[in-house]
């Protein structure tokens, strides 16, 4: 007993073919959209690759680009088949390709679902890449005279300004690093010497942050030096002052940014899977209705269309039988050869 059979007459078939053709072109647009989203994500990763130690994996955007291109091609082919389906002269050309095409679409849908899953999972990898990259970025902030690292200061400043964040976990990360280069420190000054000698590694540490941590929305001019010293500034309490500098860490800010982007892309890919499934169902109905016409010569004859010829269980068991017989094919030949030789 066929799965979800529907009766078709000529006007209904024509409507199905036209609607399906339109749906396939919408799917081509969806494929282009996935391609451009993959490209966009790739560019965004490139833009901030310094924050991720140039170590980030481009697997997901490349996969999205590939999947977008395949979707475009497959859906354009489907649209062409639909367009020719109602012309009895052109359709027989496409008839033998429909079954392999539908199987290909099945596997493609599985690939799309895997892509959506990767979109959600890659956020973890980005989290760790950012943690490492930002830690190194803060460490190399002062090395504006070292080739290869001289732009780290500007990149980190721009990131902190743009994403409204300070430091890796929070602003206290800046207290643990020497972010002022020795070139600008007066080593004949006692205060400088005291600070440098006060820690094991001989670093000039202080409770200050760079200017890019300043919050423009603060009502008072930015306090970036002696942050934890209340007496250094008039009417200042660092425990209750929340608007002076950005309190969020840059890792959290960047992860939220990429996370939002990836969640949206993943949701759109799942929507495209639903669209592709609708396309497949429509095409199956169209091709079966064209095959079962009571009178093939008369285009106005009635026909029936279905999703599966037999029920789900029977189709599945048929498929298992076929797979098993493919495996057994070699064995039987061996047995016969043995029989003939012996």
């Amino acid at each position, binding site marked *: 007993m066929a799965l979800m059979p529907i009766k078709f007459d000529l006007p209904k078939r024509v409507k199905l073919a036209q609607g399906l053709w339109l749906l396939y072109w919408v799917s081509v647009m969806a494929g282009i959209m996935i391609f451009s989203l993959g490209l966009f994500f790739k560019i965004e990763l490139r833009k901030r690759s310094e924050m991720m130690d140039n170590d980030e994996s481009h697997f997901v955007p490349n996969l999205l680009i590939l999947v977008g291109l395949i979707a475009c091609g497959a859906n354009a082919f489907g649209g062409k088949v639909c367009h020719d389906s109602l012309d009895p002269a052109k359709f027989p050309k496409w008839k033998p390709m429909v079954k392999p095409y539908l199987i290909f679409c099945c596997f493609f849908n599985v690939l799309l679902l895997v892509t959506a899953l990767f979109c959600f999972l890659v956020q973890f990898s980005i989290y760790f890449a950012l943690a490492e990259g930002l830690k190194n970025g803060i460490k190399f902030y002062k090395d*504006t*005279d070292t080739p290869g690292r*001289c732009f780290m*200061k*500007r990149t980190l*400043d*721009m990131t902190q*300004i743009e994403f409204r964040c300070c430091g890796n976990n929070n602003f206290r990360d800046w207290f643990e690093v020497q*972010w*002022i*280069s020795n*070139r*600008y*420190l*007066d080593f004949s*000054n006692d205060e400088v010497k005291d600070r440098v000698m006060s820690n094991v590694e001989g670093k000039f540490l202080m409770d200050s942050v*760079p*200017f*890019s941590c*300043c919050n*423009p*929305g*603060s*009502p*008072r*001019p*930015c306090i*970036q030096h002696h942050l934890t010293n209340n007496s250094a*500034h*008039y*009417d200042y309490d660092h425990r209750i002052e929340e608007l002076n500098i950005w309190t969020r860490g840059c890792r959290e800010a960047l992860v939220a940014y990429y996370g939002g982007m990836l969640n949206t892309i993943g949701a759109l890919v799942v929507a495209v899977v639903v669209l592709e499934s609708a396309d497949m169902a429509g095409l199956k109905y169209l091709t079966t209705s064209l095959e079962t016409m009571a009178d093939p010569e008369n285009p106005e004859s009635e026909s029936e269309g279905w999703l599966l010829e037999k029920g789900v269980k029977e189709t599945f068991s048929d498929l298992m039988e076929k797979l098993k017989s493919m495996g057994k094919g070699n064995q039987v030949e061996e047995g016969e050869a043995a029989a003939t030789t012996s």
Partner: protein
Amino acid sequence: MAVLKVTFTKAERDKLAHVLWVLNWISVVSGVILFGLGVFLKVEIQKRQELMSNHEIDYVPHMLLTTGIVACCINFLGGKICYDCVDTTKFLRWKLVMLPYIVCTFFFTFCILVGALMCYTMHNKLDELLYIGLRNAMRYYKDTDTPGRCYLKGTVDMLQIHFQCCGNAGYRDWFHIQWISNRYLNMSSSEVMDRVRSNVDGKYLMDGVPFSCCNTYSPRPCIQHQVTNNSAHFNYDHQTDQRNLWKGGCRQALLDHYTSIMQSISLIVFLIWLFELLVLTGVRYLQTAMENLLRQGDPDSESDGWILENSLAETARYNFNIIKNLGKCYQVDDDDPNINIPTIAQQEVPPRQILLEK
């Protein structure tokens, strides 16, 4: 003698009508583009309205908005007319409307040209507005507790960071104003009192700038306080150190930003004007061809189309006479025996007597 006469066969007329129908729809799109440009300009000005002293330049985006809407309507009507021109019976509906339509559209295209020129000349007005606006914004930078001015600090900081500029003409503008509010100054400190008393207005002035003036390209951490005091910082010479703070003033930066927007907009509007003129020429040819066709009577014959029926001088003279005679229609015609002309004596006296009595 007609100006730029062209002869049209039936097929050519039909093709002209179809082409003009398509062109009119493209003009509707260009009207939408004009409207969009007006909206874009309005939003750009609105974004920084706190930095402009008043709303005088709002007339430019409003002009673009209205021109865009009117262009859409006119071209929509033109498209409908051209679509109907293929059929002579349908053309009769529009026959009387077409000439006024063409004349109105011709004058309307001047509005578009005026819009383009306005965009171009907005530059000077903007310079003045920005100078005053920025000066006030910097003056009220510290007033973050005054309602209506509390967002100026944030606006000026974001402006300086985004446009990479400092102060009105340069960073020294910050030395002449008090940008730290009295709330955050320890008035009991002798240093603070010295500074406040050292100038006539009692302002706390110093050679420091806000953090938003810091140049992100600088290799050393930003020096924002005691900028002109070389001995306050190690290995620092404020005259040779070019990369510490942003060099340019915000007025110039904003002016450049708006000037480039205006120039692009005026170029696009100029191109739209040329396109409208082209479409209008086509509609004029179609109108004259259809009218001549009706005069000839045979719907399939050839007909002539032109821009003007007589030469430019004769048409101008003809129209001038019409305007003169419009005024004359209320004057009495002496040769007409049907009109009873009252004598001069009856007309003049009574009003004057009343005036004299008063």
